[in-house]
């Protein structure tokens, strides 16, 4: 898709490592050629269907297709899924043969690391790849849930699905975003059906000081760096 190729990724560094925050919501570490995605929530649609809310059963296909586009663009050596990759422990059993195949072809020829999340403490048995609770990249720890009281080390986490509500003179938007300061980055959810939590929600309060944090907001074609003072609560 040409939109991906033409898009801009926003660079920032954390713990001496350089990352770029891509407009798709993925994070790329050029040094290690590592592509990081958070909160895929595969099979969320069918999880609702179990409760008779019959959402379109295409979310897994949509999420994997988008991931394939990003992977084609960066050609990463390894892909790391930062937890909550599967919406629940029965997700693997509900996954269609087609979607399993897409995942397999995405995995072939590269390393894959599944970080455990609260929704998926264990990735389904049939998928390949390493299973880890956390991953160390230089001085940066990659884990699913942000840790509240470890100010000494840098970390990249997911779990919270940050979104920013941005208002300017001509209108307002609610968009997925990265939120980061010099010690931490929380990634946006990548999954097609993943909801979002406003970065001004109190869940973010212990993690960031408002004045020092920046939102990297995902536009249609670009990533925009926006201060929290320009963001609105829900």
């Amino acid at each position, binding site marked *: 898709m040409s939109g991906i190729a033409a898009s801009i990724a926003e660079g920032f560094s954390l713990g001496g490592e350089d990352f770029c925050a891509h407009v798709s919501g993925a994070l790329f570490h050029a040094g290690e050629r590592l592509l990081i995605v958070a909160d895929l929530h595969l099979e*969320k649609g*069918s999880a*609702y*269907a*179990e409760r*008779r*809310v*019959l*959402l*379109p*059963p*295409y*979310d897994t*296909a*949509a999420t994997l297709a988008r991931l394939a586009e990003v992977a084609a663009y960066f050609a990463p050596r390894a892909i790391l899924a930062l937890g909550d990759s599967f919406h629940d422990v029965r997700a693997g059993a509900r996954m*269609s043969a087609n979607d399993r195949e897409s995942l397999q072809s995405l995995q072939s020829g590269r390393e894959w690391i599944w970080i455990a999340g609260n929704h998926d403490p264990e990735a389904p048995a049939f998928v390949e790849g390493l299973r880890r609770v956390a991953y160390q990249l230089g001085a940066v720890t990659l884990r699913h849930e942000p840790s509240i009281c470890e100010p000494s080390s840098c970390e990249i986490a997911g*779990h*919270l*699905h940050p979104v920013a*509500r*941005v*208002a*300017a*003179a*001509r*209108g*307002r*938007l609610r*968009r997925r975003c990265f939120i980061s300061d010099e010690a931490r980055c929380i990634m946006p*959810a990548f999954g*097609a*059906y*993943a*909801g*979002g*939590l*406003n970065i001004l*929600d109190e869940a973010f309060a212990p993690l960031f000081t408002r004045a020092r944090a920046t939102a990297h*907001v995902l*536009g*249609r*074609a*670009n990533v*925009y*760096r*926006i*201060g929290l*003072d*320009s963001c*609105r*609560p*829900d």
Partner: protein
Amino acid sequence: MRSGKSALLIAPTGAGKTLAGFLPSLTELAQRPPGADGRGLHTLYISPLKALAVDVARNLEIPVAEMGLKIRVETRTGDTPASRRQRQRRDPPDILLTTPEQLALLLGGPDARTLFSTLRRVVLDELHAVTQSKRGDMLALDLARLRTLAPEMTAIGLSATVREPDELRRWLVAQRETQTHMAALVKAPPGAPADLSMLDCAERLPWSGHGASHSINDIYAAIKTAKTALVFVNTRAQAEAVFQQLWSINDDNLAIALHHGSLDASQRRRVEEAMAQGLLKAIVCTSTLDLGIDWGDVDLVVNVGAPKGASRLTQRIGRANHRLDEPSRAILVPGNRFEALECRAAIEAAAIGAQDTPPARSGALDVLCQHILGTACAGPFDENELFAEVCSAEPYSQLALSDFSSAIEFVANGGYALGAYERFAKIKRDKDGLWRVANGKIAQSWRMNVGTIVESDMLKVRLVRGRANAPAPGNARTAAGSLYYPAKLSNAARTAYTGPLARGGRVLGQIEEYFLETLAPGDTFLFGGEVLALQGIVEGEAFVSRAQSQAPKVPSYAGGKFPLSTYLAERVRKLIASPRQWGGLPEQVRDWLGLQRKVSRLPNAKDLLVETFPRGGRFYLVAYPFEGRLAHQTLGMLLTRRMERLGLMPQGFVASEYALAIWGLSDVAGACASGAVSMDSLFGEDMLGDDLEAWLQESALMKRTFRNCAVIAGLIERRFPGKEKTGRQVTISTDLIYDVLRRHQPDHILLRAAREDAATGLLDVARLSDMLLRIKGRIVHKALARVSPLAVPVMLEIGREPIYGQAQDQILAEAAQDLVEEAMQPTTGARA
């Protein structure tokens, strides 16, 4: 009606048609042999308004009591206590007065078959208003269901005068293939012709806007001459503004009240009571009072702004004077020059009794889905029998079997091509081939979801700490009290309250979330006739305090924006094109049109006038289709896309009810002169193909339309997790569902339903399409050196319009720029 046939009763307001509708039932019930009472439900009365059902019950109980009849009359609305509702199912009254939603709920209950088996008659009030919406589709399906449960039943429809009575006559009775069936028609004689005039105000008539500030003194003077006046406006925002302006000159302390849909229900009821008791001199109101509660002594209607349609105006005028032998008196107040033309055209239309109610709709698929599940909740059904029953309802008489099957599939397993959800199906076929609900929880969630009215997200407005106002003079405080007394504006603008938020104040009403989003804490706005300051949004409620700002930000809520009717638009075009008929227009308007004729050209009845001119370094194109704002907005979106492709560099556009203006960096007139482009190809109807489809996919309007369809059809529940304010990372917004579904199954029944809605509703594609066909080969292009008189009103709208999809990244870029500017400021002190 007495002969036991279904009938449509058409009568102007005040002719006593509601009671007439009950006469056959009262006669039958009175003639019952002794001891035959309590044999079950005899007559059902359905009203679109809860208040109307209650009002009619009161009016019915009086003659029943006076004649000493042993007839039980009861109401059933959302406000009826659960215990009484249960009792009503067990031991129903003779006559039950209720709403379409309550009827749907009764029909979805397991006891529906017994409950309605005794039914002899259903009376449908304000039928002309109900049938124009999805609510009407729902009612039509329920009426078909009633005919199955009670084959002896007849239907009586009560309606104001409409353009095409036969449509309503068909609506009332079962339709069977090939042959159309119609209810009998009973028409009351029309009342005396109305006394209609346009206000020719002394002040200068504005070029744009819809306000009444220029004529507020004249309106006030007119109110003084009346016993009781209804002041109709088109939007809630206008209602607030006019109310405020009237009170700012209300030296006589006239009892003037406010009534619109955002105000708290109890407050509205109090205004209605005060009105019924004759305590009010005037009510400023929106269409919430269009429908027929009996108001007693209204002897003047003032219509502020554009009348929008001939029938709408006639119905509003009908609110004045309930005696048929006397003329109703109404004054039309144009808000700008174009509205003066529209007022003139409407007065002429009313004089000849022209009607322009919208054409009959074809039944919506999302409503059908809701109905199918409801039918299954009541008991197992046979697919073929239900299809026949559905097709007997007029809006669905042309329903294709394939669409019906898709609806069944959707209800059963979502209707996805993948067939992934068979094991999670909501309804399943049993061994006899009948469809049944899979479990009891499904009926429960269907009940929570019944209805077709999906509100945009509304927040409660709660007064947390009243800022002390100058106390209102006591003599104006009658029984309605502070209810209709707005805060007087104080000269001293005070600073906003900044302390901690107090909780638990009075709820003033509800307001659209998207409007509140545009406000920052401390911003002021008009609501309920008061200037309020937003303190903050706490747990889904907007906390406000009374403020004393002189320049409140007026709520711009969209409620009550009707498009200009095609009929009236045509009359306006004819009026402009015939200077000999300008006599009835205010002098300022005549001068304005005269000048237009001299420097450019008058749009005529059949052509499309397009003007181009340079101004301030940009090039403008202004077209005058007169097809209403919605159709013009869609046209603007499609034209700018096309112009962009042609390298004409359009930068933006603005639409009004009458015209469309596009501006850009490239000289369109020059491009036309050189033959590079032609107006005919620019306005070619092929723009409704791929461009429309591409735009629809991105459109926020389309996403909102989809959400409404998804709720009505039961894909998601009204209280979907996405609506909750906490823990949002686990929720799904319908926008995400829309994006995924559109990409993977573009012909899904819900997307088709949403496109259908868009065509007739928010985007008015159908009307645009008719227009493009009408003007084909009839475009008159005037290349001007500067702006024409006719273009001024729409040019003044520039900058007031919200932005659309493509400009969204621009917002982010602006916000990012704000940050840059902030960062570049010298850091001499902390930000305030």
